[in-house]
């Protein structure tokens, strides 16, 4: 009994300490990207004339509400990141890209003297957590640097519109280019649907008469089904027969569905497979099909691929039989934006190994940078002001880091149709020299993709 009481006392004491600290920490939930010590709570009233006079800016004309503090010289951006869920390997690298980019911007004078501070939260790739995190951040930040996951972003889409806040979707759902679905999100990169058009069109050119049948295996939900619909439509346009339609049949939470899909693909003996999954799921399906003697060409949405797969036993087989497309430029490119980004990553010491996922972080950060600067010039750095500035950007130029984007005009004009098509580069990756990508078609737009008349989202989520 004595031992029990002692432990209890320890627990209790810990509990009290913990409770005491909790209150103090309750109002301080920001992390700094720069070394700026954290300061005050964001101002919720309009700041008009701060006392200090700075020669290169006239803060008196800048409107602010949430997330921009002219006195402290801080702009807060929120990141709704999946740091521990199924896409975490990718998202962690992307977040690092954001951080490196803004550290550099801050070190070089920030945005007209204002330093950018990132507030990163882990959404764990769960919709309720995502919504909760959004609610927590929306009173602290001026805009969201990214929002991970399609169903998750859909869940906050209405709220974003009601609150008038800008966000960059870290998901390539085709609906983000559809004004009927979204008005507050900055689309970027080729969407899952168009990507299927691009890749299938590419393989059609490459393989010619050898390509007659296709198997499709995807995750459910707007990520998987958007890609699946694109693949189904593109296959029809290219005259391919769908011998296995596993649209939405692969469930990340259920191992047995991987085997189901693998068996069906092996049975179908399709000439090519289009997958829309994540990398580990893809590797599992791939392994099980080749164990049954299947030999087809593999391709699919970019998040299904991760160069780290090249280290696995199936690496060699993968390198020989798959093609992928990259939304950003590839590591080995010599475009000015890429060279600059690589330099910054190396200088920051954050570079673990070459990966073009860092570029995605840079691309998102540059989009937000463009929006913030436009908002500053317009003199309105309120949440609504940043949103309006973003939506009137005629061109965001990434210096070759990714295809340029536009946010004005008709969806069919501004929807992205270009991606970089590459094959896995086994030797380059294993030696650590490249990110594991050999470009076979840089800045490629297939005829199938070019001719596609984009009027709205391929897959529409039902409410």
């Amino acid at each position: 009994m004595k031992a029990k009481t002692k432990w209890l006392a320890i627990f209790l004491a810990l509990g009290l300490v913990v409770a005491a600290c909790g209150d103090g920490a309750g109002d301080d939930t920001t992390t700094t990207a720069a070394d700026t010590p954290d300061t005050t709570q964001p101002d919720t009233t309009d700041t008009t004339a701060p006392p200090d006079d700075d020669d290169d800016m006239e803060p008196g004309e800048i409107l602010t509400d949430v997330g921009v503090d002219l006195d402290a010289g801080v702009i807060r951006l929120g990141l709704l990141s999946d740091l521990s869920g199924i896409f975490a390997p990718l998202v962690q690298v992307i977040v690092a890209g954001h951080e490196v980019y803004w550290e550099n911007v801050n070190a070089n004078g920030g945005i007209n003297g204002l330093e950018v501070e990132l507030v990163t939260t882990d959404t764990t790739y769960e919709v309720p957590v995502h919504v909760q995190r959004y609610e927590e951040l929306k009173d602290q930040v001026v805009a969201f640097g990214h929002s991970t996951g399609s169903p998750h972003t859909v869940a906050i889409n209405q709220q974003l519109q009601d609150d008038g806040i800008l966000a960059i979707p870290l998901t390539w759902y085709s609906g983000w280019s559809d004004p009927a679905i979204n008005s507050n999100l900055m689309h970027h990169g080729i969407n899952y649907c168009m990507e299927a058009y691009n890749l299938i069109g590419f393989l059609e050119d490459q393989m010619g008469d050898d390509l007659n049948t296709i198997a499709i295996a995807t995750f459910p939900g707007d990520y998987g089904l958007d890609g699946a619909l694109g693949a189904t439509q593109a296959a029809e346009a290219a005259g391919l027969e769908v011998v296995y339609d596993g649209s939405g049949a692969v469930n990340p939470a259920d191992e047995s569905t991987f085997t189901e899909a693998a068996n069906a693909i092996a049975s179908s003996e399709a000439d090519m497979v289009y997958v829309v999954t994540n990398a580990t799921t893809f590797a599992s399906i791939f392994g099980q099909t080749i164990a049954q003697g299947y030999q087809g060409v593999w391709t699919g949405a970019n998040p299904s691929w991760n160069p780290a797969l090249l280290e696995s036993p199936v690496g060699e087989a993968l390198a020989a039989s798959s093609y992928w497309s990259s939304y950003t430029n590839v590591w080995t490119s010599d475009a000015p934006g890429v060279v600059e980004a690589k330099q910054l990553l190396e200088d920051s010491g954050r570079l673990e190994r070459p990966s073009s996922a860092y570029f995605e972080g840079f691309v998102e950060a540059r989009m937000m940078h463009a929006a913030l600067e436009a908002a500053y010039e317009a003199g309105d750095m309120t949440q609504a002001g940043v949103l309006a500035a973003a939506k009137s950007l005629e061109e965001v130029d990434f210096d070759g880091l990714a295809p340029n984007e536009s946010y004005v005009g008709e969806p069919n004009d501004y929807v992205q149709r270009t991606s970089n098509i590459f094959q896995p580069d086994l030797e380059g990756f294993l030696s650590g020299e490249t990110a594991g990508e050999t470009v076979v078609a840089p800045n490629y737009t297939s005829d199938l993709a070019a001719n596609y008349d984009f009027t709205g989202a391929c897959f529409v989520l039902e409410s």
Partner: protein
Amino acid sequence: MRQRPLLHTSYQSDQALMNSWTKKVMLAVLLVILVLIPFGVLPVITFLSETAWLRLLTTVAIFGIAALGLNILTGMAGQVSLGHAFFMGVGAYTAAWLGAAPGPLLGLGLPIWIWLPAAGIVAAAIGVAVGPTAVRVRGLYLAFVTLGLVFVGEYVFRNWDSLTGGSQAGRDFPGFTVRLWKEETPLIDFSTAGSWFGVELSSQAKTYYFVIALFIVAVVLVKNLQRTRVGRAFQSIRDRDIAAEIMGVNDFKYKLIAFGVSSFYAGVAGALYAGFVGRMIPETWNLLLAVLMIAIILIGGAGVVTGTVLGAAFVVILPRFVEDFTHWLSSVAQAGSGFSSWLADLIVSTGAGDFGLINTQAGTAPGLSTAQLNQVLYGLLIIGFLIFEPLGLYGIWLRIRNYWKGWPFTY
């Protein structure tokens, strides 16, 4: 008798809901606090009126209702269930079918006074239908049957696209608006901001009031159930089912009732949770949620209503606390030199390659992410409470109270 307020001379007064003056006063104070929270007028806990905190409190109430149900089954009747998440899912989808506006997905657009009770009733019906198996299968085998329910349920939810919206896609759930029938303007709308009796309220505040009110009703009902013939039958089954049967307690009947009532609570809570979050994917109702429910009743204290409430509050608020605490630690660690910042730096990793138990920097250093840390804490707390304090937080509260009451005597 007036001099001895704690002396109960009749069974009735001993079993009364509020059998002491302290309880009555404390309860009144608590109710006033609950009402005042959204206005942010209370000292010290002003921060609870923030949107995010109101949402957390609402979640506490919803999980509290669900856990009360599990407590009836596991805490009171002693039937181990790992399948509570399944019944919550049943409730949520019943609510969606009946309450959501007609569209591409199943929805009848009926008012809340139909769909909310129906969510409970359908879940209860399925609970009772599963009951006979559960009565035949005993003890630990029962735990596995209910575990199986979660998996089978998830499979059904994932594949029933027309009702659930399909895996990873999900659907919208009906919100908290009270209508007489299907008329345009609702009588009372808990889910949009507006003024009540001249008081301006945010949508979160209204939702909070709605859910808290239901939660209080749920607590009172369980408290009452505990004091009835049925409640005592449950407890006798829990303590020794054969002995109970010999004394004339119908084992089969009461186990079915326990399953039914427990599932009713789960169903209502599921409908509330889904309506509260708004959009849910079918994967929500999985094993992790079921384990979370177990964690709530074990951390709070199995078989005790107060314990369940404490447990729900603890489990829901812990992640927020862990996150704030981590940020506070990392700010201490970054603040400069000195022992405290050295200590904080050991616990949190703040930069690339920095060692730390908790990792706030994405993808750079080893260390638990805050989400993982939460899970680990749940696990450790479950173990710790079972080994050292099986009565949970309620047990700790009892010790404190008895110490207070008995002071300066230790007994």
